[in-house]
């Protein structure tokens, strides 16, 4: 989503980045073959040694007991976890509802921004203005302003902080996701729309049946990436008093002056993002396999 480079490069770069992250973690190809099996053993032994040394070093460090008491308190964990997990459902609800609106509105915005010709300049300008604005403002500022400001506008305006939390997240993430879609649309070669138009399909039909299906397929990995970002940013709505996992952890923690509840919260966030991250990696790898299969005819 950077400014420099063509959108095509951008998509490729994102795919590349995510792909190489995976191969770095798994140590690249070679598993399964004899020398590969040896490599696995070396990896296992080295991992065990490394982490044992690390654990011993941490446990024997001065102040470890204080750290353990403040952050890794089993008693506190057990006590706070159920209420935090319940509050985490609010986060889940937040990002699931927001994501649906984001995916639809961002597509709308991206198509607006891609309209050709001088007639549509005001529409394009509007889309660009929106994207620039909401990519620039810190998310927490949008949440704070709408969460406290909007309900004060009058009787007919919704009062629920949850409602304004969803609105804020949708406003901000729509701007990001619209740019991802746009990169996808622009990465589909002009000859595809020429072929579609030459068959008599209207501009809208060629977008709908030819351009968008290809564009969306290409941007699924970066889209999932933004979805992970959205999941984490649901913690920001604690600032307007929505009792979600982070806010619940603050409540638990302030009662006991112990920080273990935050660790429990962090764990919950990681638990939902990891499967999504692996799923993204898998999609990228599958896409690469397919493209390679296509090129070796």
């Amino acid at each position: 989503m950077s400014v420099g480079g063509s959108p095509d490069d951008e998509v490729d770069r994102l795919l590349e980045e995510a792909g190489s992250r995976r191969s770095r973690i798994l140590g690249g190809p070679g598993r399964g073959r004899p020398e590969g099996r040896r490599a696995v053993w070396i990896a296992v032994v080295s991992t065990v040694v490394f982490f044992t040394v690390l654990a011993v070093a941490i446990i024997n460090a001065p102040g470890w007991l204080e750290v353990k008491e403040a952050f890794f308190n089993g008693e506190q964990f057990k006590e706070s976890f159920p209420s935090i997990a319940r509050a985490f459902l609010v986060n889940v609800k937040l990002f699931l509802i927001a994501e649906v609106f984001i995916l639809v509105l961002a597509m709308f915005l991206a198509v607006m921004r891609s309209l050709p010709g001088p007639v549509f300049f005001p529409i394009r300008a509007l889309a660009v203005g929106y994207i620039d604005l909401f990519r620039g403002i810190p998310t927490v500022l949008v949440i704070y302003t709408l969460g406290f400001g909007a309900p004060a506008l009058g009787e007919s305006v919704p009062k629920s902080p949850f409602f304004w939390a969803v609105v804020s997240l949708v406003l901000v993430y729509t701007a990001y996701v619209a740019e991802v879609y746009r990169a996808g649309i622009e990465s589909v070669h002009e000859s595809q729309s020429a072929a579609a138009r030459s068959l008599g399909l209207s501009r809208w039909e060629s977008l709908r049946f030819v351009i968008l299906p290809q564009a969306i397929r290409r941007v699924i990995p970066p889209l999932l990436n933004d979805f992970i970002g959205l999941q984490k940013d649901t913690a920001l709505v604690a600032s307007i008093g929505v009792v979600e996992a982070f806010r619940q952890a603050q409540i638990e923690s302030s009662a006991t002056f112990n920080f273990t509840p935050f660790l429990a919260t962090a764990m919950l966030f990681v638990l939902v993002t990891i499967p999504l991250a692996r799923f993204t990696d898998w999609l990228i790898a599958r896409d690469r396999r397919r493209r390679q299969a296509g090129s070796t005819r």
Partner: protein
Amino acid sequence: MSEAIRLEGVRKSFDKLEVLRGIDLIVEEHEVICLIGASGSGKSTLLRCVNLLEPIDAGQIVVAGVDITAPGVDVNAIRTRIGIVFQSYNLFPHMTVMRNITLAPTKVLDLSIEDAKDRADQLLDRFGLVDKADEYPDRLSGGQQQRVAIVRALAMQPDIMLLDEVTSALDPELVAEVLDVIRELATGGMTMLIATHEMGFARDIASRVCFLDEGVILEQGAPLQMFSDPKEERTKRFLQRIIAAGRM
């Protein structure tokens, strides 16, 4: 015979570069016109203009008596009557061969899925592609892809076919299968405007050959006369270069 296409004083520039500098050409029905000329002489641009993929700057293009370059014409309706096939096939990679072919007939001509499939099956059968109907384009050879692209254009039952160097991206051994398809179309009486580098093919198939040079039709005539006894010095030099390159 009546007139299929008439071009009058067609001009087209890209920024400062004037690609077409006053093209006049009349194509009669059932005629096969081959456009020859060096790369950059304007052959592709001319075809794209006839299909209205490029708006022209000046002049007129009249198809079956209708000025298609007049303001306010229904561009999509005109395009359904003029098929175009591109050098790089431009099949839709996310659709099967069958879907590539039936998309426009169902969406533009409002054919039912069954009718569109029947039409596609007949065409695929005619060009020996019946077993490829459910494949994705990436799984086909270049020659097969280009034949599918031709079938896709034919499924709209156009009056005119424009072929833009359809064999230029193919490996040499795949050229013949595509040329055979075009030959069959010519035998069937299809009106065609063909930009090509295949001189031997042009000599065999064309009712008329036009030599484009720097955005104008410098010389035109029957293939035999054009290839054995060109009048213009530049035509002679172009053909000599082609012969020297072993392409004829």
